[in-house]
């Protein structure tokens, strides 16, 4: 019991509750002091409460302790291992500075958030089985689709953070990330943020979708501002995580590892981090502007003027401005989600094909190319928004050009597979499944990017089908490939291969049915984000197919979780390098010791020369051996 209350996580939750109450009390107290009535106004109370609750969590969990000490001039030595007098497992429930612990924390919390988002999808898919409303009110339905969107985005960002934090320092032979405290802060800020998003569903909900377009988002229920605040807070994690990763890669490689001898996943992580560091600020700004417009009446997005503004001859606000600010992040965000996944594909294919990676430099630079082009395409989401017509064509061409670096990746993958000695354990199956699904996403994208066709496809299930294909192909399948592939390294045990393969076949079959069903329904005119549909549209059978397939996917993920939990506790001990990988993290014991490498790595060859006799990538210099 005493151990329980010493857990940072529990203290953080208490801090969040206290902080929220404090914020609410502050607002109500100030209203009382200035003699306003009514005393209780829900929106400012919840916004200030949510803000102070987040701070309360971070104070309670202890993520700010070392910085507070630094400000007070106290020494803050690095701490390794479990807190004094506590068992090893408590590390995972408290602020810990090791990137390996933080990577696991990101992944586990990411899977929890993923399950919440998946549960919501399951609920509203049941509603869509028949026309008419059976189980939910339309408001409840809208809240669920909105929450499904943002909660899944949070889950994907957490999964990306998990892979990057665990793998990148190991791959470049660094002892840890460049800023371990910032790393812990970047993980823990996600926890109060996720809780805010979940709370928002229960205090009125909101019906704007995850895109929060004004003017609807200015008028929606109380869940709206909590959702903006949660979104904003998750953005803070993205910014500090991206910053940390870039510094780590640029300053902490061993001198012998030049940029073109880094494992290919590191390049993908760099591309992702550039986008996270720069683009996230704009969506943060957009969310902040929504909050102040709602609570202080600052008319950024309202095209109507009040009397005082008319007297000033002020120009009006403009709701399209929000869409520009929002999509300047939220389009690059999809590359934040898929670049690490595509990096995982490039990383694993040579291992299972026993062949060098085809066109290493081209793959590496295509990640940076996608990241750069990703900044120039945001307005392709706005072809029907009423923005200036002359903006449409350049954004259409810029969008179609993105197919070039993505195509480079596809041809490199084919070149790597060509003539390889392929084996098909579970991670390889997920890699191949990812390629097939991402290809489908690549084929449904251009019709949505071309203005003439987009005018018909916009706001239909076609778009829903397209982005689920890119997210499953670019994130979900590669994420599970990575989970199975690095499972023996992280836990030191083998996973159950038969259950892994069952998971793959159920998920890939379920996904193809679900996704093609969405494309088909979209072509028949089914609009997205609509709780009900006309039976005359003839999409009921398609909706039933999508719902059944969605439940198959959910079931397969439960199998995977069962497999991971049971295997981590009691399965056979894994050998050190079961995949015969050349990457440095596979040359050290599993699970990896507290200090990963005893001495700096010496890179003496190319990373992906599989099948070339006598070639070596890294040499481990044992501590104390000396030259």
């Amino acid at each position, binding site marked *: 019991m005493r151990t329980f209350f010493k857990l940072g996580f529990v203290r953080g939750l208490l801090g969040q509750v206290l902080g929220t109450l404090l914020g609410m009390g502050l607002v109500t107290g100030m209203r009382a002091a200035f003699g306003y009535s009514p005393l209780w106004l829900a929106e400012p109370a919840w916004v200030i409460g949510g803000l102070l609750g987040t701070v309360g969590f971070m104070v309670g969990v202890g993520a700010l302790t070392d910085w507070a000490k630094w*400000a007070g*001039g106290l020494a803050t030595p690095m701490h390794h291992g479990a807190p004094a007098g506590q068992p090893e497992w408590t590390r995972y429930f408290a602020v810990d500075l090791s990137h390996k612990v933080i990577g696991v924390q990101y992944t586990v919390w990411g899977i929890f958030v993923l399950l919440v988002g998946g549960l919501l999808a399951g609920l509203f898919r049941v509603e869509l089985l028949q026309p008419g409303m059976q189980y939910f009110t339309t408001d409840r339905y809208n809240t669920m689709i909105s929450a499904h969107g943002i909660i899944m985005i949070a889950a994907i960002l957490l999964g990306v953070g998990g892979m990057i934090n665990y793998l990148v320092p190991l791959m470049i032979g660094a002892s840890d990330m*460049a*800023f371990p405290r*910032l790393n812990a802060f970047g993980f823990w800020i996600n926890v109060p943020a996720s809780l805010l998003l979940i709370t928002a569903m229960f205090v009125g909900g909101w019906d704007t979708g995850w895109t929060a377009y004004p003017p609807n988002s200015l008028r929606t229920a109380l869940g709206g501002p909590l959702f903006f605040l949660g979104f904003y807070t998750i953005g803070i994690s993205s*910014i500090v995580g991206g*910053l*940390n990763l*870039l*510094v780590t890669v*640029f*300053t*902490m490689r061993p001198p012998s590892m030049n940029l073109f001898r880094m494992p290919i996943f590191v390049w993908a992580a760099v591309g992702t981090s550039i986008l996270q*560091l*720069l*683009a*996230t*600020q*704009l969506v*943060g*700004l957009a969310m902040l*502007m929504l909050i*102040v*417009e709602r609570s*202080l*009446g*600052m*008319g*950024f997005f309202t095209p109507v*003027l*009040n009397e*005082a*503004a*008319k007297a*000033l*001859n*002020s*120009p*009006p*606000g*403009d709701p399209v*401005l929000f869409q*520009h*600010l929002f999509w*300047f992040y939220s389009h690059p965000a999809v590359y934040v989600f898929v670049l690490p996944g595509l990096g995982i594909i490039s990383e694993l294919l040579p291992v299972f094909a026993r062949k060098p990676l085809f066109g290493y430099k081209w793959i590496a630079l295509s990640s940076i190319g996608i990241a750069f082009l990703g900044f120039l395409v945001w307005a392709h989401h706005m072809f029907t928004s009423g923005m200036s017509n002359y903006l449409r064509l350049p954004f259409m061409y810029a969008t179609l050009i993105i197919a070039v670096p993505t195509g480079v990746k596809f041809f490199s993958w084919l070149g790597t597979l060509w003539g390889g000695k392929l084996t098909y354990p579970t991670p390889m199956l997920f890699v191949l499944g990812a390629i097939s699904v991402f290809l489908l996403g690549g084929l449904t994208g251009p019709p949505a990017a071309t203005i003439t066709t987009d005018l018909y496809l916009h706001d239909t299930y076609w778009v829903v089908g397209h982005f689920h294909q890119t997210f499953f192909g670019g994130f979900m399948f590669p994420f599970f490939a990575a989970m199975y592939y690095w499972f023996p390294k992280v836990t030191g045990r083998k996973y159950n291969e038969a259950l892994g393969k069952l998971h793959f076949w159920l998920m890939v079959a379920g996904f193809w049915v679900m996704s093609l069903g969405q494309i088909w329904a979209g072509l028949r005119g089914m609009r997205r984000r609509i709780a009900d549909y006309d039976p005359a549209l003839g999409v009921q059978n398609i909706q039933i197919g999508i719902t059944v397939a969605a439940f198959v996917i959910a079931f397969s993920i439960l199998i995977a979780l069962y497999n991971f939990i049971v295997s981590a506790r009691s399965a056979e001990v894994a050998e050190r390098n079961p995949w015969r990988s050349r990457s440095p993290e596979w040359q050290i014991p599993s699970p990896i010791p507290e200090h990963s490498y005893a001495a700096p790595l010496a890179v003496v060859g190319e990373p992906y020369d599989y099948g070339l006799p006598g070639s070596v990538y890294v040499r481990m210099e044992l501590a104390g051996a000396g030259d």
Partner: protein
Amino acid sequence: MSGSTAVHGEYRAALRNNRLGLWLFFLSESFLFIGILVTRFYLWGNTRPELNQLNGLLVTIVLLLSSFTMNRAETALVQNDRKTFLNSLLVTVVLGLLFLAGVIVFEWGGHIRPSDGAYGAVLFGMTGMHALHVVSGIVFILIVWNNGRRGLYSSEQHWGVEACAIWWHYVDLVWVFFYPALYLMGQAIR
């Protein structure tokens, strides 16, 4: 290998990381401020509201002077002149507070309210976001002043002072772009 050399090497490695990290943070923050400037030009176009020009000029001069005193503090520390170091930090804080007073009392107290259309929203949005950064800089300087008073920085090892100084210069630089966007560009509308 003596112990002090090892500590020195560790400090140098950390310093390299810290510098790169801080400059990347500036790059990230620049996107925030560029977004705010984009909002100003999108909504205001080639016009601006009538503002108190004298007040705008005075607060700009005060803030630019504070950048000079901040630089003086850092240079004094490098030359081991502790008294000038600490005093210049305090002068910088006073100048920062004067700037805040000018913005909050005279600009926010003028005839424009936050809810007055795009003029009110952008004026309070720009000055408010910048003022928030000035407040963070003042808190940072006070922390550095307190730690400096207790002798925690040497003329060779003072990353905290360096970070605080460039943060303050950065906040000033943002105002160098905000001042013309608010006070000088476009046609003043009565």
